[in-house]
């Protein structure tokens, strides 16, 4: 059975990958250790590859990336959050890659329009998840400073995690089951890392939950300004 790809779903997943890849790309030349220059770039490249496939199913990849206004982006607020310190980047990676891994594993098992992409991406994302988990352990269960910073990061980003399990048009997965699995997995990693599972709400009127509807956080506009500036300065040029 072939279903037509839902543009809404392709944009949601494509924008997640595009935006997180961009944020990770900001680390180039600033990483805490040379191995992480390689690892973060590796993850950013995987995500960019996914983004290009997904956006191309919804239209022209460059038009979509460079010519949409902020309100037209459908990514989660989580992925647009600034890098912060390395702990914030790792917490963002942990939350997102756990979600993305469950999502792609789910999609790969369907015969829906994303099955092929998901089957390929799920292997990449398994590595991203492992990378994030290992670093969560090293920071959480390393030095006192590492522990404090990792705890602060996990708590700060917690309120952006509920949005991941809100329904998206054209995305045919068991969101409730995914959410249970996500919570179980993240709790177990935080526990092993001697970190406290944050207690605040993960969704709600006051918290995050609107990236999928095109409502973003303040830093996102600046990120797009930087990303789109050159392309927009030369209308119609090819590169």
């Amino acid at each position, binding site marked *: 059975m072939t279903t037509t790809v839902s543009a809404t779903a392709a944009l949601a997943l494509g924008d997640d990958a595009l935006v997180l890849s961009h944020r990770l790309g900001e680390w180039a030349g600033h990483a805490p250790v040379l*191995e992480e220059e390689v690892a973060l*770039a590796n993850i950013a490249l995987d995500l960019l590859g996914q983004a290009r496939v997904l956006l191309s199913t919804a239209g022209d990849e460059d038009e979509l990336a460079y010519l949409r206004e902020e309100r037209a982006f459908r990514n989660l607020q989580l992925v647009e959050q600034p890098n912060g310190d390395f702990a914030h980047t790792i917490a963002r990676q942990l939350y997102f890659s756990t979600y993305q891994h469950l999502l792609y594993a789910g999609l790969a098992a369907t015969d829906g329009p994303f099955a092929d992409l998901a089957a390929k991406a799920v292997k990449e994302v398994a590595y991203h998840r492992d990378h994030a988990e290992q670093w969560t352990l090293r920071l959480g269960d390393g030095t006192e400073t590492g522990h404090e910073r990792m705890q602060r990061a996990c708590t700060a980003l917690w309120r952006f995690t509920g949005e991941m399990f809100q329904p998206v048009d054209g995305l045919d997965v068991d969101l409730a089951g995914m959410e249970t699995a996500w919570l179980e997995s993240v709790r177990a990693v935080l526990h092993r890392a001697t970190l406290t599972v944050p207690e605040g709400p993960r969704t709600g009127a006051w918290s995050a939950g609107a990236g999928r509807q095109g409502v973003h956080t303040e830093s996102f506009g600046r990120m797009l300004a930087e*990303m789109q500036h050159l392309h927009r300065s*030369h209308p119609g040029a090819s*590169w």
Partner: protein
Amino acid sequence: MATAAAHQAYGTTEDTADTGAYERAFDAAVAADERIEPRDWMPDAYRATLVRQMAQHAHSEIIGMQPEANWITRAPSLRRKAILMAKVQDEAGHGLYLYSAAETLGTSRDELLDKLHSGRQKYSSIFNYPTLTWADVGAIGWLVDGAAITNQVPLCRCSYGPYARAMVRICKEESFHQRQGYELLLALGRGTPEQHAMAQDAVNRWWWPSLMMFGPPDDESAHSAQSMTWKIKRHSNDELRQRFVDICVPQAESLGLTLPDPDLRWNEERGHYDFGPIDWTEFKEVLKGNGPCNEQRLTQRRRAHEEGAWVRESAAAYAARHTSRTDGASKPGETGATRA
């Protein structure tokens, strides 16, 4: 054959007669184009020269990430963005190979980074120039990676084994970078008038500094003669520079761009392109620290290192606590899987 004698592991004896024998064997091995390996005896000066050269090379790879990373977040198409990210990642990988090669001579990466951060060791001066426009990314690929290849291909036959082997891997990737840079400039050269002007401006700014990458003229080059005898170096600075010019001139023509040198012309008699005088005062000033970006590059490097200290310390503390356990946690170095 010199092989058996030359490749004796370095003994602990201080006996001068024995050292003399080792030295003769070493010289014979080098003369016979054999590879010197980490456990072989080697003169202290050879070891020091190699460590200095590999360190400077490794530092250049990691500092060289900065001018190009400057454009990752502004790359004008997703395809170009992917190419640029992969390139900057490759340079980090080159840094890793080279620090590892230097470690085979008993000098740790930390020690070398310390020397870089405190200004006791240098990196290639080319990276002290700024990347002002997107076209600079292309100019760096075409000219800077191009010059690096010209310099480094002979190093694949360097007498020191680990360095030579690292260079084989590195040169393969550098030639991708060179082609990608050329192709980027080609797209600009064939693009809008603004894109063409951007490309020409970048080439104008990067051409002369690229020629300086081959180092001072032969009659002023401090380390050249000894390095040639040791087969760490195979061609003189001027020879390599000429080779580079000869390669670039026809390529610039195909790009539809000019090189900023009124004296550049084919010399039938020499079979080479003649080119104008290089401004060695500029070279020396940049080398001394007075280039446009010396301060900025080193400051960013130091800051990344200092701000990352708590991360490295926490990883080390975790590793120390869990070494005896087999819970599957890998060391930080094991997370850097390379791109498929």
